[in-house]
């Protein structure tokens, strides 16, 4: 998404027509993948975000959606010329694109009946929606700050799930208890949409890519020496930061971008081998390290390396 001045003409239910001019500097559109827009929305709610989340859906730069937030409450959703509910429904289950956040305070009222909108959205969503984003099953779920919920079957299922999540659990390991498959997913999506749980790949994919990097560095250490391994590690981090500036060294990347930071990490692990050490040894070391992973892990890593 282009940076700089842009204006958004929007129809507001409270006001007639309002022209918002958003001036934003320094914000950068970063890719997101393997995370549903509805989950991004939930995380912004959880962190009480104020401003605009501009999304490019898929790889089409004309396919732009914007969500306005005020202190973690959804103010407005815009996608094509759809009104809020339809716009949210149209983008909710997209799991690939780019996201740009610009913080700003809006003197506007939040969207009314957000919970009802979510419930309606979930009602129309098949269980199989998870199959459109299979990587999500590798994500780790942690609880965010609990807040009062409206009484509904989805919220009750959600509360039941919260107990199972405890201090955190991989999505595949959350016990369903007495919940049916439908109730489980209803409850899970309800918690997600309301920002009551956070999805992160840090403890699954992050750990895997870290293992991948460590094994490769260890291999370099053995083959080419500590000096080369050290230069490699430094260059790798420089390469990552060059492409993902707000990723602080030694910290987990923002979970809002799904697996995108990890994909970049895996790719930089490979690309940096071309910048340090002997090419032949790097290539053979890389292949040897990959071959040591289980077929399941290997398929995840290879998927990121494409």
């Amino acid at each position, binding site marked *: 998404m282009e940076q700089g001045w842009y204006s958004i003409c929007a129809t507001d239910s409270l006001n007639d027509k309002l022209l918002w001019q958003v001036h934003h500097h320094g914000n950068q559109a970063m890719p997101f993948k393997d995370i549903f827009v509805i989950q991004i929305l939930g995380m912004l709610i959880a962190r009480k975000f104020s401003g605009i989340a501009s999304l490019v859906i898929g790889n089409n730069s004309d396919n732009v959606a914007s969500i306005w937030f005020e202190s973690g409450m959804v103010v407005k959703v815009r996608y094509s010329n759809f009104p809020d509910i339809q716009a949210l429904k149209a983008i909710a289950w997209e799991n690939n694109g780019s996201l740009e956040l610009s913080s700003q305070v809006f003197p506007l009222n939040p969207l009314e009946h957000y919970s009802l909108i979510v419930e309606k959205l979930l009602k129309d969503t098949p269980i199989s929606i998870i199959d459109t984003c299979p990587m999500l099953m590798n994500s780790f779920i942690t609880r965010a700050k609990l807040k009062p919920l409206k009484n509904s079957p989805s919220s009750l299922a959600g509360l039941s799930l919260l107990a199972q999540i405890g201090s955190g659990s991989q999505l595949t390991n959350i016990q369903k208890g007495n919940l049916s498959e439908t109730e489980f997913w209803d409850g899970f999506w309800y918690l997600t949409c309301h920002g009551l749980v956070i999805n992160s790949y840090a403890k699954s994919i992050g750990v895997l890519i870290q293992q991948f990097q460590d094994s490769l560095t260890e291999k370099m250490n053995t*083959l*080419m020496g*500590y*000096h*080369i391994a050290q*230069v490699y590690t430094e260059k790798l981090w420089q390469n990552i930061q060059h492409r993902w500036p707000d990723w602080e060294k030694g910290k987990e990347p923002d979970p809002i971008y799904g697996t995108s930071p990890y994909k970049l990490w895996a790719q930089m692990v490979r690309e940096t081998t071309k910048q340090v050490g002997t090419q*032949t040894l790097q290539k053979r070391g890389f292949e040897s390290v990959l071959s040591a992973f289980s077929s399941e892990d290997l398929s995840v890593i290879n998927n990121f390396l494409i």
Partner: protein
Amino acid sequence: MSKDSRLVIASWIILCVIAVILWVLTVNSQQDVFYTYYFSVFQLLTSVGAAVLCYRTTLVLEAGDKTRTAWGFLSMGLWFWSVGALLEGLYTILHPGMDVPFPWYADIGFLLLIPFVVLALLTFKKGQNVGIPRWGLVTATVMFLCAFSLALQLNFEVFEDLSSIAIIITVAYIILDSILLAMIVAVASTLAGGLISRPWQVALVGWFIFYLGDVSYTFFRNIDRPDAGGILLDLTWPIAFGLIALAATLARGIYKSA
């Protein structure tokens, strides 16, 4: 250590032992021509052997890998030196009992080795994508200046007895040998552990022995006592090439098993 490496070590030891025995048996006698012939063949065999093994190492490396180019340069330099050794050997056989004149065509081959070694070391260093540490640069510069001034000082007194072309070739040897020494030190400072450092450490020891042989021989030849170094000086080149051949087989083994 691979089978190839063990074979190289055994062959070089046997060839050296034969050289020593022949030298002991024939020194200062009418039969010393046998030692001279053997030594000519020995030099040629070891340099050609090292050239072939360096080339063979390039074959296991990926196209575009700078290390492959480095081993290629080493091989090429050794081929030039082998041509020099062949010419010198032929002169010895065709003119029994006579010393090879200086300078002679063989010197072109001998001199051409060093630029290729320097290119090989530079390419290897570049291929590692690591810089030479400051202490390495300082030590290399100091070594160059010391080696250059010492060699110049040793040879300076005999310059007036040499022809201008002999002076030019002597100075060329002095400069190139000093550059070689500086490069050995600079590259050695970048070799910090790791399996792949081992062959290059062995190769650098080989080039250092080669440097000692070259410098000593240049001096002895200029004072008209080319045999003053005895068997020890004679063995410096075959031992140096033996170490380079060993380095090539060690590197090949590492690349193959990586």
